[in-house]
């Protein structure tokens, strides 16, 4: 049954100086679906993700989230949206090194005004869900790469976002650790009903998606429906 897409990019153009990063790129994400953005390095897939998430502003074109024009929003409004409705997982370097893993996961809730005790309780439950309770009291630097990414996934999901943006989330991990992160990430996202926009150049990671869109030279070439 066809429903309105949750997130839509229409004919996005974006240049960095003389370099065209996006050239009439369009893509749609429906609620609860996992979309893989694939393509070679420099194809524009990360730029497209950043535009979809309201981090980058396209020169032309429009991004619509839940019926609201993200491109026409005030910066503060967009930031608030990113904090409350979007979650992010990057390749590495996203956890605050001075905080423990538990505090890292609790941070988005605290920034949203949640009381400390409730935030920590919720964070602990998410660490358990991602099977990394044992690093709760450790700092990110003391956790392994795979553990760190699971903590990052927990932090992205703790606010129960409607969309999670993941840019090469397993890019720095070996096969086995990468697979475990993807299994836990996808299961948790499905459980919360979050849509996922997943940038990856690895076919085995893309195989966790429901559909793929291929970005080449700043354009989206194909989008396949599978389910």
């Amino acid at each position, binding site marked *: 049954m066809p429903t309105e897409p949750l997130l839509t990019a229409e004919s996005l153009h974006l240049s960095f100086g003389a370099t065209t990063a996006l050239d009439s790129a369009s893509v749609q994400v429906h609620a609860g679906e996992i979309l893989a953005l694939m393509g*070679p390095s420099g194809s524009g897939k990360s730029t497209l993700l950043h535009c979809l998430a309201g981090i980058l502003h396209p020169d032309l074109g429009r991004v619509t989230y839940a019926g609201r024009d993200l491109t026409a929003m005030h910066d503060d409004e967009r930031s608030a949206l990113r904090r409350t409705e979007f979650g992010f997982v990057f390749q590495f370097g996203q956890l605050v090194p001075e905080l423990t893993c538990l505090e890292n996961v609790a941070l988005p809730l605290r920034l949203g005004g949640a009381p400390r005790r409730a935030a920590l309780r919720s964070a602990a439950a998410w660490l358990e869900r991602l099977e990394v309770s044992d690093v709760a009291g450790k700092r990110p630097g003391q956790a392994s790469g795979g553990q760190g990414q699971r903590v990052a996934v927990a932090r992205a999901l703790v606010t129960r976002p409607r969309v999670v943006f993941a840019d090469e989330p397993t890019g720095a991990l070996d096969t086995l650790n990468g697979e475990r992160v993807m*299994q836990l990430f996808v299961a948790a996202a499905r459980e919360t009903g979050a849509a996922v926009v997943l940038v990856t*150049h*690895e*076919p*085995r990671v*893309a*195989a*966790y*998606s429901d559909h*793929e869109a*291929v970005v*080449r030279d700043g354009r989206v*070439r*194909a989008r*396949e429906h*599978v389910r």
Partner: protein
Amino acid sequence: MTVAHTLLGLLEAGPRHGYDLKRSYDERFGHDRPLHYGQVYSTLARLLKNGLVEVEAEPGAGPERKKYAITDAGVSDVAGWLAVPEKPEPYLQSTLYTKVVLALLTGYDANDVLDTQRSEHLRLMRELTRRRDGGDLADQLVCDHALFHLEADLRWLELTAARMQQLAAQVRA
């Protein structure tokens, strides 16, 4: 039927004798396995019977005097073959390579061939991923083996896509 489709695709450039067709095939696709004359003529006979090629009469007798031309039905047949993905399995490269080169020769979008194939590969990889993640250790190992092979195909596909301009220039030269 790869040889038949390949010969048909090569005929899109213009009518040819069986001998020329064999030489053209061997040059582009037959490095390890050149075609036998018998195979060329039997394939052409079958294509003729199915209305995919026609013969331009020339004085003289014998199969080597016949010039073969692709029919409209033949052109549609090639386009249909290029548009349908191959069943994903290891060691597909030679068929895929043939399809890409023929697409470039006949003006079909070669990137479409790759995109269609990629989505077919990913469809199977999703199935295998679900089976693996829900299965026991034996399932996991068996599925992983298939997944790594399919991934290798996809890497080849991406590399080919990245080299498409270069390949097009060479093929059309």
